[in-house]
């Protein structure tokens, strides 16, 4: 169980502090699949970083009763001058996984071949996405945080992600952040909408979808 209460976060900007999250409450039960919808810049990624522990809230409390992945997003998590393999090894060491044992899976899943021995800075965003996804599958988490990354890959990548996340890891909790309601609708049991720093909770995905469509219109 992950329980967040009264999460507040503001960032300093040239024109004063901007509040991104203004009292967000969220509970994630084991095995639950939750979608978080919001427009660009609504604070979805900030929320996910706080859940993952990459950032701390200004106020509020977060209790993590299960292991949580780092946010699977386009940037972040990789040191760009290291090769893909060295980044994989770094992450494996940090999380206590034997790096060599997971190489076959990573080669197979990413299909990056020789590029795995090249610096990550030379990767396209699609290649980074594949590496990020494969790396996080190597570590066994109770809850995965997926920040847009799946929705953008090509269909082959999406099929593989689907297999890994929703079939093989169907018992894990999942938080999917997206501005694409279709993806959330297809994959999540619940959805919430982040708007003006508040998280609006809904009992069903359809209700969230309706609210989000009206808000976007």
């Amino acid at each position, binding site marked *: 169980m992950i329980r967040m209460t009264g999460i507040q976060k503001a960032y300093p900007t040239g024109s004063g502090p901007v509040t991104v999250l203004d009292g967000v409450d969220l509970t994630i039960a084991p095995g639950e699949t939750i979608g978080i919808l919001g427009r660009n810049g609504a604070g979805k990624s900030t929320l996910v970083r706080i859940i993952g522990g990459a950032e701390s809230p200004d106020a509020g409390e977060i209790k993590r009763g299960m292991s949580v992945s780092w946010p699977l997003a386009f940037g*972040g*998590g990789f*040191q760009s001058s*290291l090769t893909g393999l060295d980044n994989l*090894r770094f992450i494996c060491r940090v999380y206590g996984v034997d790096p060599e044992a997971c190489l076959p899976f990573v080669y197979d899943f990413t299909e990056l071949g020789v590029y795995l021995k090249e610096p990550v800075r030379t990767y396209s965003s699609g290649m980074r996405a594949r590496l990020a996804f494969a790396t996080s599958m190597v570590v066994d988490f109770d809850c995965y945080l997926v920040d847009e990354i799946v929705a953008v890959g090509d269909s082959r990548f999406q099929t593989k992600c689907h297999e890994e996340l929703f079939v093989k890891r169907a018992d894990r909790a999942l938080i999917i952040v997206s501005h694409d309601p279709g993806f959330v609708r297809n994959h999540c049991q619940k959805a919430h909408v982040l708007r003006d720093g508040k998280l609006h909770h809904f009992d069903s995905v359809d209700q969230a979808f309706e609210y989000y469509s009206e808000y976007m219109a």
Partner: protein
Amino acid sequence: MSSVAQSWTIQRRVLGALLMREILTRYGRHNIGFLWLFAEPMLFTLGVTALWSIAKLHQLSSIPIVAFAVTGYSSVLLWRSMPTRCITAIEPNLPLLYHRNVRLLDVFLARIALEAVGTTISFVGLVLIFWGIEWLDFPENVLKVAGAWLMLGWFGASLALFLGGLAGTSELVEKLWHPAAYLLFPLSGAAFLVTGLPPAAQDAVLLLPMVHGVEYLRDGYFGSLITTRYDIGYMAAWNAALTIAGLLRIRAISEKVRPE
């Protein structure tokens, strides 16, 4: 497993991973790779030793020039390289802070450890090599030399934490550190013995904490050959103050640093 043991395991894993990551980006897998870790400080010290020998700096004191240069310049490298590496530590490691267990402090500790290992191997290696070819005598009191080396290392580490923490919020630190380090070098005791200076200058130069470390080191190395002046309590007070200030500063900025 208790939570302390668990935290210790995670801490060890993170520091080990960061050390490997630093070695790889800094030295790569080309030519001699990680051997540069101590080859670089060795080359520095060798160059300075050669220069000082030619410049006949030893006429200023009664002690052998090679041992004088090796003890002096190795000391400088020890306290100077850690801050230099730590003031630029945050930026390239920002993406790694995405991983919850990787903390800003770990990034600093990994860089400090790497510099400590490199400069120590360089110092010990040069002493052994020169001793082997009889260019210098073995230290009179090895324990004292080791104690002084630890004190200088602690000084470097505490200064690195303090300046690294400050550099997280101010670009000025990086701009000012290089001229400051350059100016501190001739004052640091590496190239003179305190008792060789006029009395007024002695008291002034002994305000600098690293001078005490270098004097202590040379007391251990040359012992009866020279007279040294140092107060290890004074140096320890500086080190402790810098360590505490550094740790507080790092704790304060880790809330503000945003992973990339």
